[in-house]
């Protein structure tokens, strides 16, 4: 395995609120190799976005607190850098694409002004060189007639086109890592397919490592080599994509895969839903956070937090039982509502 580009260890992020301390991220660790695509899958509130905001120093403090952990990037700890140091890295070596392309672009500036800003700032390009570069980037993300469109304002672009602009902006400085937070969630399927195809081919050319954050297992299956499944602020399973989808080892992953209706194959049988609601991050249940919703739970699950240990599928899973053989029962958690 090559030297990892980014090494995150035991990251903990918390938020102080009126109601109590929200433990948004509770000790997660992962490595990212150069050129690799890592998926982080989780539902809303699982902490997947917070993780990546923390890496880039974008957690508002207060109320946010980085309670612990390190994130090594080229030998430096991202979590301990000053905002000044981070601003050299953000957009330059680590870039990001957010879910909502409408709010991530400034409506009062033309695309040209926004696209050239990063290269002029980080790569010290001259105005004309930055503009040429920006046009080239727009062309590469598949915007027709870029030399004309570049002087348009964001509202003159459609949602898919705006997301392309965001990707062009993110890739302008040839970053080593691209963090894509739900990049296609706001888009239609046919546009999503376009964007994903484009990102794939760009990644091949540039060798950028990508962290793809999403709730959509389909997107992960299509795009990522390795997946981390996140639940209530922790990684509960981590494996190569094929292995994870073929034989999930954590009850939550299994439940997720069972609960999505399929496009092919038998269609009309009843879905197997995960009962209950995700836990309140202020009052996490003792032991395993998934226990109240888990059909496999045993007595031990309430007493200890299962560690993320190596699993038979070559990855790691945080579960005491073997989901392939363990008996199932009704989850013990409180009823819905």
């Amino acid at each position, binding site marked *: 395995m090559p030297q990892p580009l980014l090494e995150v260890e035991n990251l903990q992020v918390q938020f102080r609120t009126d109601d109590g301390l929200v433990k948004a991220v509770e000790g997660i660790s992962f490595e990212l190799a150069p050129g690799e695509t890592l998926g982080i899958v989780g539902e809303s509130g699982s902490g997947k976005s917070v993780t990546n905001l923390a890496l880039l120093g974008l957690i508002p403090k207060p109320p946010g607190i980085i309670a612990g952990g390190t994130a090594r990037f080229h030998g430096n700890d991202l979590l301990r850098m000053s905002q000044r140091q981070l601003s050299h890295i953000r957009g330059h070596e680590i870039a990001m694409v957010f879910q909502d392309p409408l709010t991530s672009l400034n409506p009062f500036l033309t695309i040209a002004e926004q696209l050239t800003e990063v290269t002029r700032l980080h790569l010290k390009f001259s105005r004309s060189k930055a503009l040429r570069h920006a046009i080239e980037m727009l062309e590469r993300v598949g915007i027709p007639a870029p030399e004309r469109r570049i002087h348009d304002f964001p509202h003159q672009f459609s949602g898919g*086109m705006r997301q392309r602009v965001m990707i062009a902006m993110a890739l302008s400085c040839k970053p080593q890592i691209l963090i894509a937070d739900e990049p296609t969630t706001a888009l239609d399927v046919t546009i999503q397919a376009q964007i994903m195809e484009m990102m794939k081919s760009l990644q091949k050319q540039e060798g950028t490592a990508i962290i793809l954050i999403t709730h959509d297992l*389909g997107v992960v*299956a299509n795009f990522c080599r390795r997946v981390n499944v996140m639940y209530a602020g922790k990684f509960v399973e981590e494996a190569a994509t094929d292995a994870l989808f073929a034989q999930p080892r954590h009850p939550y992953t299994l439940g997720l895969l069972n609960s999505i*209706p399929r496009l*092919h194959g038998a269609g009309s049988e009843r879905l197997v*839903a995960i009962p209950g609601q995700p836990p309140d991050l202020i009052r996490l249940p003792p032991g395993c956070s998934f226990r109240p919703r888990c059909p496999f739970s045993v007595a031990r699950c309430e007493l200890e937090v299962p560690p993320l240990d190596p699993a038979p599928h070559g990855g790691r899973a945080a579960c005491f039982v073997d989901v392939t053989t363990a008996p199932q029962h009704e989850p013990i958690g409180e009823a819905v509502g």
Partner: protein
Amino acid sequence: MKTAAAPREKFEKQPASGKPLLEVRDLEVHFPFQRGPLWARQRGFIRAVDGISFSIREGETLGLVGESGCGKSTAARGILNLVKPTGGTVLWKGEPIQGLNEREMHPFRRQIQMIFQDPFASLNPRMTVGAIVGEPMKIFNLYPATQRKLEVMRLLEMVGLNPRFLNRYPHEFSGGQRQRIGIARALAVQPKLIICDEPVSALDVSIQAQVINLLEDLQQQLGLAYLFIAHDLSVVRHISDRVGVMYLGKIVELAPAEELYLHPKHPYTKALLSAAPLPDPVAERARHRIVLVGEVPSNDQLYQGCRFANRCPIAEPSCSLSPPPLEGSPHSVACFLADKEPSGPAVAAR
């Protein structure tokens, strides 16, 4: 059955034959627009829904899929007269209801209900759950006050919520629970048809399945018909008996669900199906993806021919001359070239 504590009544599912519950014929919803400066003012119509026809029988689920802007939500609002249709007819059990004013529409509001997309925006944040679910009964004067409360509790129980939470407010519930409250409100007047406008797209994956199962259970118990509108192809396939695919205000293909997904005929349907990501890495790698060029064009212009022609991978020049009619039964498709290509999801075009 005089008290709410009695076992809930089962509705007899009507035979699928006979008169359809809802019949929509050539429904059109056009919005006038003006744009440009005063001296060069352009006037025209946004043809959000441009002549769609379908029918729903008792106890049946009709799915409507399409991308954003295809007019599927506007069609739902047109049926309910939330926006006034500009053309076509909507028949409820044979009785025309299109364009009725609020007073004339009132009796039909008990028959057709709606579930909304956003569980955060569709409940009044200042009202308690009891008031929200009880409001339709109050408007239709269904029960005396105490009885109404009991009825609300019964409904909450029915949708899987704790009936004791009558006095709680929407913000004290999670997204999935709020969607259940919305469903309970729709059920309050015992409608025959519920229009579900993207009811699960704002929910998390694990909660989606709960809500879909609930909708299916309720259909079984109460004999409801659904018009299920969504952009997620797999969800629509799962819940629908028949599925219509919309593109730019038109239905381009309408067929029984299994048939449509196994043997899509319209090139747009094929592209949609191939674009949907599968939660299966092996299948993902194996399949060919039809990546459509360009984006959905604006629907403010008149189309001579097929609306999909400029993005269609198999279009011929003749496609742009006249509009293709929606033909065939039970698998109808609006494409001149539908039979020329072998059908099936594996057809690829780059």
